[in-house]
Each structure stands twice: as structure tokens, then as C-alpha cells.
């Protein structure tokens, strides 16, 4: 047996002093251990995420060669450029429509998968998630090839229906459509998986009660499914808004922002200006315009997480 080295006699007077000091020591031990364990995380995020984020603010106030301080000069310059406003408009349209379709398709497909008997669900799920698994850079190459001006496989198929060759990436309207299409192709599986998991958690009895109450399939969705899934819908939508808004890979590879800047979004234009144009401060200014929108979305997400935490 373990011998504890305390003498019972000097309990009374030493007790309180000992208890206070060793209690503090115990607390300190646990706190310092915990702090040390989170320290790498804090350092990583601090140095490589938070600091650059603020540094870009500073960067945006410098001139092209980064020698002089120009204050809002870069921003004024941007506001006067038509391309800039084009980018703003395109980014918003792109993000909003892509997310809308991703959510819609994800929701619909999740329902279909949910309807299928459980044993078969796995293989459907497996197939439908493939777009998300393939690195976007790789799959976008496939789309690039599918949209190729001369050899497009789509145009080949469409020609059998008498529909003329479509300039998928050459004509501004179609280019925008293509970019959104690829983004939706890539992102819908994410929504599908999230919604499927959420659908499974809606108790069957609610549907049965609604059916007995006389609801048809549309009413069941509106009155039972959607309210139960409100939280997950909100979170995934906001999350996707942020990620889609800041998207780079797909647009860059498909159109590099063309034709004539008509598919440029913030990320690709910042790259064009900052790296290809060697004007880091100007590029930083462009990127910074994403911040207000990201911040608003983040606030909503935070609120929803907390709300969900309270409800759970």
C-alpha cells in the first residue's frame, strides 16, 4: 500500500495554508499544461493567419514598390477602375448563384438518396461524392478539356440535336455560366452529404404524424423537414458563401479571369494584379474587399453555432 507522508497530528494549523498553496499549484499545473498544449496552435494561427491578415492592411497602404506610404491611394485607384466594379459585381453574382444552386441540388439529391433503402444508399453516396474528392485543380482540367473551343465533347453531343457549337469559355455569358457550373459540380456533394446526415436525424414519427394529418409530400418538406434542418442549412450555406466567394482554383484554370476580365473574381484578380502584375499592395487592396463580406458571414455563422449549442 502507498504510504502517504502526512502526519495526522499537525493537521489543524498546517491544513489551511497547505490547502491553499497546493490548490494553487495544482491549478497552475493543469493550466500551464493545457496552455502549452495549445501553444503551437496559437502560434501557427497567430503568425501565419492573423498577422498576415492585418499585415495586408498595412500592405494595401503602400505604393507599388512598397517604399512609400500612400494611404488610401490604392483604394482610390481601384474605385476609378471599371474592372474593379466588374469584379465586385461578378464575385457577388458568382458566389450567390453558385451557393444557391449547390444548396438546392444538394438538398434535392439528399432527399433522393434518403428515399432509397439503406443498403443501397452507400453506393449512391459513394458515386455522388466523387466530384468533391478529386482535387479541384485536376477536375477543372477535365472541364477545361470538355469546354475546349475546338474539341469540346459537349459541343459534339449537342451537334446531334442541332444546337450550334457553344463557346463555353470564349463568350462572356457562357464563360460565367461555365465557371458557376463547375463550381456547383464541385460543391454540391458537400451540401448533399451534410443534408443527408441531417435528414437522417429527423424522426420518422414526425413524418407519420404529418401524413396522418393529411400533408402531401411538398407540405411534409415545408412543415417538417425544413424547420428541423434550419440550423444545418444556415451553417452550410454561410460556410459555403465564404469559401465560394474566396474561390481561386476553378476560375483561374478555366478562364484565368477572361474573356476580357468578365469572369474575374476577387481572388483571381488579386493574383493577376499582385503576382503577375508585381504590384503586391494593389493586389492586397483587392483582396481586402473580401473582408467585409466574409466578416458579416462569419458573424452569422457564429451566432448560429451558439444558437445550436444552446438548443442542443
Amino acid at each position, binding site marked *: *500500500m*502507498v504510504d*502517504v507522508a*502526512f*502526519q*495526522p497530528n499537525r*493537521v489543524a494549523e498546517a*491544513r489551511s495554508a*497547505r*490547502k491553499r498553496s*497546493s*490548490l494553487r499549484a*495544482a491549478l497552475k499545473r493543469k493550466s500551464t499544461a493545457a496552455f502549452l498544449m495549445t501553444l503551437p496552435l496559437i502560434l501557427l494561427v497567430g503568425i501565419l493567419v492573423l498577422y498576415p491578415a492585418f499585415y495586408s492592411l498595412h500592405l494595401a497602404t503602400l505604393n507599388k514598390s512598397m517604399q512609400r506610404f500612400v494611404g488610401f491611394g490604392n483604394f482610390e485607384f481601384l474605385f476609378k477602375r471599371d474592372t474593379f466594379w466588374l469584379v465586385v459585381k461578378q464575385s457577388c453574382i458568382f458566389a450567390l448563384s453558385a451557393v444557391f444552386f449547390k444548396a438546392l441540388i444538394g438538398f434535392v439529391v439528399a432527399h433522393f438518396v434518403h428515399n432509397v433503402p439503406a443498403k443501397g444508399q452507400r453506393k449512391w453516396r459513394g458515386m455522388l461524392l466523387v466530384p468533391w474528392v478529386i482535387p479541384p485543380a485536376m477536375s477543372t482540367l477535365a472541364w477545361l478539356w470538355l469546354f475546349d473551343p475546338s474539341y469540346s465533347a459537349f459541343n459534339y453531343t449537342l451537334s446531334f440535336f442541332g444546337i450550334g457549337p457553344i463557346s463555353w469559355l470564349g463568350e462572356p455569358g457562357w464563360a460565367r455560366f461555365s465557371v458557376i457550373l463547375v463550381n456547383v459540380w464541385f460543391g454540391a456533394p458537400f451540401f448533399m452529404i451534410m443534408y443527408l446526415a441531417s435528414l437522417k436525424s429527423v424522426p420518422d414519427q414526425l413524418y407519420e404524424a404529418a401524413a396522418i394529418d393529411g400533408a402531401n409530400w411538398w407540405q411534409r418538406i415545408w412543415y417538417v423537414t425544413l424547420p428541423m434542418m434550419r440550423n444545418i442549412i444556415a451553417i452550410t450555406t454561410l460556410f459555403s458563401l465564404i469559401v465560394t466567394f474566396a474561390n481561386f482554383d476553378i476560375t483561374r484554370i478555366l478562364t484565368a479571369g477572361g474573356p476580357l476580365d468578365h469572369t474575374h473574381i476577387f481572388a483571381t484578380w488579386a493574383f493577376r494584379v499582385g503576382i503577375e502584375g508585381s504590384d503586391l499592395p494593389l493586389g492586397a487592396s483587392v483582396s481586402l474587399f473580401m473582408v467585409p463580406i466574409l466578416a458579416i458571414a462569419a458573424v452569422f455563422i457564429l451566432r448560429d453555432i451558439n444558437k445550436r449549442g444552446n438548443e442542443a
Partner: protein
Amino acid sequence: MADVTLRKVIKRYEDVEAVRGIDLDIADHEFVVLVGPSGCGKSTTLRMIAGLEDITDGDIMIGGDVVNDVPPKDRDIAMVFQNYALYPHMTVAENMSFGLRLKHYPKAEIKTRIDEAARMLDIVELVDRKPKQLSGGQRQRVAMGRAIVRNPKVFLFDEPLSNLDAKLRVQMRIEIKKVHQKVRTTTVYVTHDQVEAMTLADRVVVMNKGRIEQIGTPNDLYHRPATRFVAGFIGSPAMNFIPCRLEEVAGNLNIRLTDRIAFPLPPARAARYQNVARDAKLLLGLRPEHLAEAKAHPEPGVEPFDAVLDVIEPMGMETLVYFTLEGTQEICGRVNPNASARAGSPLRLAVDLNNMHLLNEGTGAVI
């Protein structure tokens, strides 16, 4: 083996006092049960003995040494949890030997201890299985095995049978008692079930709202409860409490229940209650077995009366009858199954005043 002593132990959370000053002496080898309703502080007390909760004030001593600031792993205790808390990724043998392996006991020693404990608990063929392959009762046995192999000074049980079904609970109770008879380790056992307390304990500690109501052997608590709470908590069905008064009639002490029902007190009781105020509001405490059907030749102190039965519950071995006496609450009595008790019919019952308890309604103390 060691004795456990609690001196004026207090536990405060923010502004709530969960445990309000407990003094308790547990002798070496003793099996003590802390029993009481939810929130009475029994689990908190146990966790303070284990070292899982800090003590706000007071001292806890194990084997004569103050352990207030000693971490759990150095207190030489073992604990069995309500939800078993078995490590899901380890086999039964690994679960049981985890503590020993952490202390680098030699492999041979570990094996011997596991074999012995497994034999004692009849889980020898389960040692290579994982917890998810075991039933509830088997898991509980493994949890006990984990405690036994450590050979600690004190066993602590935190409501270990609450998650089992009724039949299994009865079986496991016997197992636990057998283990204690074999291993003789000092045991502190927490439960809200007074049947477990009565059947397992050497001594029972009844707790209520953070304080100890009474400490005693099961027999003591049953026959000589000190407070209304203990009297009502121990025993099932619960003791009846009937408002009453003492009155003096022609030099003899009577107990009056209603305008029409009064009983003379037997001499022993009369002597004890001589000094009680005649107008004081009192409660007559009677266990249901002391309200039985009237016999042809009543013994001294057993007084007959008539009652109309409201509900009867035939239990097979006996029949529980429920009735009221002019506006009192439902009173429960136990009669023979063939006493022709029927709902709605009158029955001649008798009250055994030799086993009555008189309580002060205000203070709740038993006189």
C-alpha cells in the same frame, strides 16, 4: 485496509452548499452505505473521498492520514462507477490491469491478480473480450474486477446497480456482498435505493439535503428511526404518518386520531410519553405491517378498529390495503391474503401500538 474518517466536511459550489458539515467514522473492513434522495450530497461526499472533487472545508482521512490534497491516484482507492466507465478499446484483462500496468507491476503479479479476481467474479471466460461484447451485468463485474485487482485501502461504489434491470440488480447485490465477505476491504457505497442499503450495509448513513440524518445498522434505522425523514425513507411500503394528539382520560394516556377513534397506550409507551404536552400536534408513525387484520384474541397493545377499504393490492404473499380515517391521507396496511379484503368493503383491522412511533410534527424528531 484502512478506516475512513470525515470531519466537518463541507462542499460549496458557488453559493450552493451541497454538503453541509459531515462527520463520519468508518471502521476498517466496514461496509457503509450512504443513502438518500437525489441531491442529498451522497455522491458529492463519495467523490470527495475519492479526490475527484475538492473539499471546501473539513478533513478527510484514510488510514489515519489526511488526504485533502492528495491526488486520487495516491490515495490508494478504487472506484466502481454507475456507467461502468470501462475503456472501450481494451479487453477485459487490459481494463482490469490498466492501473497496475501504469505502476509497472511485474507481469506475473498482474496475471495472478487478474486470474484471482476473474475467478471470484465468474468472468474468467470473458477476459479477452471487449466491453461492447458484454452484457450490463458482465460489464459491472469487470468494473468490480478492476477495483479488486488494485487491492486498495477503500472501495468506492457510485450507484453501481442503477443501470441494471430489477432482476439483475438482485443478483449483483449478492455478488457484491460475497465479494466483500471474501475481500473484506473497507467499502463506501452510494445508492438512492433503500433496499440496497438495508441488504448490503454493516451500517447505513441516511443523508438529506447535505446533512446526515442518522447513522446506524439497518435494524436500528428500521426499528428506531430518529427523524421523520429516516422513518419515512427506510422501509417499503413507507411508514404511515397520522396526525394525532395525546389525551389524558381518567389517569390513562390515550392517543386520539380522530373525533371518534382513540386508543389507549400500552404501559411501556405511556411511561415514555408521560412528559409530552397534551395539546401538542403529533404524528403517529405506524409501519404497514403493524396495521393488520384484527385477530380473534388480540394481544395487549393491539387495538381493533373498523375501516372501509379503498384499494387493495394483492401481492401474493400478503395483501396491501389502503383506507382513510375521516379525512386523513391514504393509510397502508398489510393483511393476510385470505383475510377477505375487498375494495369498498369494511374490514376489521388492528393497530399494534407496541411498535408505534410518536413524532413531533414541527421538528420531525421521534420522541
